[in-house]
């Protein structure tokens, strides 16, 4: 089955951990993930600026490793990210900010990428919504 996964909660939220575990289980079960889309506070999962205490799960690091290893499409909504201070080099330059907190494999793009994934996938699975 082709899954699209949308995540709306910050990296420290339990639902973000569940999203990663679900994504790993989906691939382990022979399914496909057409895209991971990070929206609202979900954009913090893609932030390089998150520092997790050593004895806790470093979710941004785990997402990054997972996406790199499985060559997945990890898309972060650009409007939601800018609003929350998650910027890649290009956006930091555009808005004259010193801090760059997002880099490959993450990609900043628009909500069209969410709709595109919804159309492509058999199932959309959301984590961390209201």
């Amino acid at each position, binding site marked *: 089955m082709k899954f699209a996964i949308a995540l709306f909660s910050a990296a420290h939220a339990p639902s973000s951990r569940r999203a990663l575990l679900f994504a790993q289980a989906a691939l382990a079960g022979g399914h496909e993930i057409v895209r991971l889309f990070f929206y609202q506070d979900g954009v913090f999962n893609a932030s390089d600026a998150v520092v997790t205490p050593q004895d806790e799960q470093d979710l941004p690091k785990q997402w990054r490793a997972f996406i790199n290893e499985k060559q997945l499409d990890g898309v972060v909504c650009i409007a939601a990210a800018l*609003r929350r201070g998650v910027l890649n080099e290009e956006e930091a330059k555009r808005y004259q900010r010193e801090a760059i907190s997002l880099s490959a494999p993450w990609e900043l793009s*628009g909500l069209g990428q969410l*709709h595109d994934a919804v159309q492509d996938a058999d199932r959309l699975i*959301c984590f961390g*919504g209201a």
Partner: protein
Amino acid sequence: MAKSLLIISRQSPWSGPGAREALDIVLAGGAFDLPIGLLFLDDGVLQLAAGQNARAVQQKDLSANLQALPMFGVEELFYCAESANARGLGKLSLDEAQPLAAEHITALIDRYDQVITL
């Protein structure tokens, strides 16, 4: 055929960017001509309250975005009647939105291929 998507908007308009961000998904879908529905549920119905004064809470008005929905081709607009009654809402600011009894919400969700609740 394009897959249909229902957005269930449950956040009050001034509790943070949640309501606006839910609406942005709907407007983006409308711009791409996708079959999109929007249901206001629980505190989400407060987005439809008439006579809001966004400026008084130093916020940007959401109602202009809401009024734009039909222009973006989003015509499937619903709100939970129980949620509206429970919050004492009378006249709503979006004429196109249809009231839906709580027991009909399951059937509404069933009509769509995918659902996002925000």
